[in-house]
């Protein structure tokens, strides 16, 4: 068991954001953490990464209790929901950033940066500043940066929600490929059923701060343990195709209108 989340409970002031959240992620597995906006997905990720201290519950990584460790001692790679490339560093410097505290020497550092830039197809942008990248390139640079120090677990918090539809689909496949190639244990957070179903080995469905169901995508879809899971997973197929205002534009404008996050 690589990652074990046990009984996570968190309060913001009076509000209960997480209530007894428990799940596990196996080595090399990609687990989707799925749920509607505000259900506690980001709080869960932040707690695993150590940026939020949970009120109760524990986190184990490779069998070690890391609940009280600061983020820098956790070996958890994170790609945040919003872009976080360091604007004052080149793409290569961004990717190299996490290698220094990991104790990687200069020569190996350069080789590692090259390898990961190639993995995400950004070798030509190595000297570019983040501001010069397109949205998809930024996301891939962040992915390389998070992967380069070879974390025990990679947390992806809705990495595609700020991107346009078509790009999103392509980058999703790209992420799947990278995960396959690196074999990194991954927790993939999304509110998008389709993405979760397509990517995940297993799914953790959350609702209102609680785990509503855990299982393989097909299994959960076919025999949902709760009505919420049923309706939430089912919705992607039940979604009616609403006719847009101008019937002449139907397909083209749909494709564009549907992009973006929540």
């Amino acid at each position: 068991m690589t990652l074990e989340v046990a009984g996570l409970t968190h309060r913001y002031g009076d509000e209960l954001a997480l209530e007894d959240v428990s799940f596990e992620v196996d080595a090399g597995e990609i687990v989707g953490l799925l749920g509607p906006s505000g259900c506690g997905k980001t709080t869960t990720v932040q707690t695993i990464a150590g940026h939020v201290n949970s009120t109760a519950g524990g986190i184990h990584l490779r069998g070690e209790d890391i609940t009280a460790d600061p983020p820098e001692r956790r070996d958890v790679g994170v790609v945040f929901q919003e872009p976080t490339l360091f604007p004052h560093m080149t793409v290569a410097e961004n990717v190299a950033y996490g290698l220094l505290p990991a104790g990687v020497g200069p020569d190996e550092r350069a080789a590692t940066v090259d390898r990961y830039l190639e993995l995400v197809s950004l070798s030509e942008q190595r000297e570019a500043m983040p501001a010069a990248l397109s949205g998809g390139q930024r996301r891939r640079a962040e992915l390389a940066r998070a992967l380069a120090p070879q974390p025990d677990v990679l947390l992806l918090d809705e990495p595609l929600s700020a991107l346009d539809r078509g790009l999103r689909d392509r980058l999703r496949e790209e992420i799947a490929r990278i995960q396959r190639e690196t074999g990194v244990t991954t927790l993939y957070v999304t509110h998008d059923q389709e993405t979760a179903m397509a990517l995940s080995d297993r799914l953790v469905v959350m609702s209102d701060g609680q785990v509503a169901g855990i299982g393989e995508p097909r299994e959960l879809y076919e025999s949902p343990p709760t009505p919420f899971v049923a309706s939430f997973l089912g919705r992607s197929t039940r979604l009616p195709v609403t006719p847009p205002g101008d019937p002449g534009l139907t397909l083209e404008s749909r494709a564009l209108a549907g992009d973006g996050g929540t």
Partner: protein
Amino acid sequence: MPALLGGLLLVYVAVPFVAFLARTGTADVLARLAEPQAQVAVRNSLLTATTSTIVATVLGVPLAYVLARRSFPGKRLLEGLIILPLVLPPVVAGAMILTAFGRFTPIGATAYAVGIELTGSFIGIVLAQTFVAAPFVVVTARAGFGAIDERLERASRSLGYTALGTFRHVALPLARGAILAGITLTFARAMGEFGATYMVASNPRTMPTRIWVDFINGGIDAVVPVGLALLAVTLAVLAVVQRVGR
């Protein structure tokens, strides 16, 4: 229209300066600046204002960071406290420093017992200048840190850097412009500080205290040489700071 309004302010600032130089002339400026008294004042001012600016920056920038990032009970109070020296007339600031660090106060007496004079000394000047000028770098740097996306710092932590390492590698470089502006204001204020310095340490003489003495002995005309030197030295140092900081 903005140029017109702005020009008005520039003219308002320029008129006293021009009138002053027109009236006093700058004839024997160099001769007066060659006097040892003037040179000592220039040296003392440079020395103390630089020290004060360094102290204010080394302590003030971390403070600004903490104020920008953390929230804790009593934070508002501390924020008020840090504006305090900005509001206080320098005389009151000087009186306050004397009550805290004067020779016969507990702190002052202890320091004196081990041979350190907190008033009437270089240390006294630095105490006064730091008290009065430090708020500028704090207020400005705080605005700079506040503008940085906190997620960048979280990303740095998750990449293996401690809070301190993150401060050094992410927060500091990204807030550089604001910190530089703060250092500029603090250094300028420290160079020009008179009221508190005069209360706490009228000796050794800095340029502003020298100017005051010149003024009461020799009137307005006598102020010109050191006054011009003060402006020249300050602007020169700030030009260097700007260049190095870029």
